[in-house]
């Protein structure tokens, strides 16, 4: 990729960041909602860890931190969907995608850049305040080592790419399905359940726990959280996330190629 094209994608990302930054009231409302849900969850987790201290290998303050991380990352990582995929599906449905395919930019990279821009805004705009609220009013376990924070940010970036890659595949299903409602619902279910949003994956019992931890969604919330909480080694974590990212992005390319041929067959 040349300097020119990387500049293009940087501009796309910056544009998406600015676009989301204009929804000020919606962002404030989202901050409020995440804080309320964080409050409800944190009390539930405290009761749970009261009953079983060290459940899933976390102590109470780690469990509390986990809750507020989930609320902070919920919008940024589009854990239950709600990013670019609705727009892309709409463009596929209306046929406007044909115009996108003629642009001198790569479709997948274009949307990846836009989604990372959105993600960065949501992290700052919707994530920081609920997390700060949680850290102020509840006992949290945060590392002092700046290297751990850096590793967390890397895990977060990789998680955002995995999240994008999954949603890109879901959006491309629009080429075959007339109605994307079912796929978006599936995305919501897997995102909430398999990312550890409803309950940390290390609390899941036995074989079910092993399965969900091996799935790509664990890269979204569980793994970055474990890196921050000092429960996972950064390098193997990055490797796991990167393997899923590459595999899913490659799958996205294959499906995109198949889908593009379909557009031509339809005659545009």
């Amino acid at each position: 990729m040349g300097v020119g094209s990387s500049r293009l994608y940087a501009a796309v990302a910056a544009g998406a960041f600015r676009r989301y930054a204009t929804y000020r009231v919606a962002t404030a409302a989202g901050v409020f909602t995440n804080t309320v849900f964080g409050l409800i969850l944190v009390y539930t987790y405290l009761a749970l860890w009261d009953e079983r201290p060290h459940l899933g290998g976390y102590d109470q303050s780690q469990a509390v931190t986990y809750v507020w991380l989930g609320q902070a990352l919920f919008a940024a990582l589009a854990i239950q969907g709600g990013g670019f995929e609705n727009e892309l599906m709409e463009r596929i449905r209306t046929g406007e995608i044909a115009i996108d395919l003629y642009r001198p930019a790569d479709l997948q990279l274009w949307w990846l850049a836009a989604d990372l821009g959105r993600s960065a805004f949501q992290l700052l705009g919707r994530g920081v305040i609920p997390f700060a609220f949680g850290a102020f009013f509840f006992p949290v376990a945060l590392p002092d080592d700046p290297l751990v924070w850096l590793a967390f940010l890397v895990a977060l970036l990789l998680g955002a790419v995995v999240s994008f890659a999954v949603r890109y595949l879901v959006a491309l299903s629009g080429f075959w399905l007339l109605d994307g409602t079912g796929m978006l619902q599936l995305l919501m279910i897997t995102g909430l359940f398999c990312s550890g949003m409803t309950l940390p994956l290390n609390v899941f019992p036995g074989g079910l726990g092993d399965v969900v931890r091996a799935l790509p969604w664990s890269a979204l919330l569980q793994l970055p959280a474990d890196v921050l909480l000092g429960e996972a080694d950064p390098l193997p974590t990055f490797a796991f996330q990167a393997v899923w990212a590459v595999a899913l992005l490659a799958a996205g390319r294959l499906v995109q190629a198949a889908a593009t041929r379909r557009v031509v067959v339809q005659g545009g």
Partner: protein
Amino acid sequence: MVAEGLRAYRLIAGMWIRSTMAYRASFAMTVLGNLLVTALDFVAILLMFSRVDSLGGYSLPEVALLYGLSVTSFGFADLVVGSAGRLGTRVRDGTLDTLLVRPAPVLAQASADRFAPRRFARMVQGALVLGYALVAVDIDWSVPKTLLLPVTLVSGAAIFCALFVVGAAFQFVAQDAAEVQAAFTYGGTTLLQYPPTVFGKDLVRAVTFVLPLAFVNWLPVSYLLGRPYPLGLPEWVAFAPPLVAVGCCALAGAAWRAGLRSYRSTGS
């Protein structure tokens, strides 16, 4: 006025039901999907109970009773007036004006708008858990207790309906703050799925005296199970839900009228 509203509601909802039923397979899929999405909440509770025997001193059947009452009455309210939550969009894009010029109450129109029969799913899921709870829970049934159960369900549904209407009225003022409404409605039903003993005193006080959610299930269930009441309230409050519901509905009606009066069209 009320009869007129009900008639308008029936006509509009009927129209949306017919339009939904035109695509039966798609309808069946979205119902199934919604059933799965809403069931996840309870699966999370089941997973918790796979690791602990009680939560906040409540056993699984007891939590299921709280869950069943909260979700069933919430599901009913969401089905009946949930659509009014989209009011902010209508205020923003000016399509609310079309509702104003029609000779039918605006609230009835806004609630029946895009009436989605798939929302039955949440109610059904709540009722299934409630059924399980009633079989599994250990209650010393008496005449007042038996009567209290249906009364609680109806009152809870009315309280949630009032909450939805207040939320819709709020969107006249804050047009793109639909998420604030979600924090109270969805947040409220999530909160009530767990025992009051889990939460901090101030939070319990707030949802008893300010936002009277405690009357949806916490207080009646305390009576049914013969448990100490939250905040040491007197025993008769378990029978107060109908009164609270009437009060909430009256307040919601006033809020709705105030909101509607404050509405200034976009002029487009």
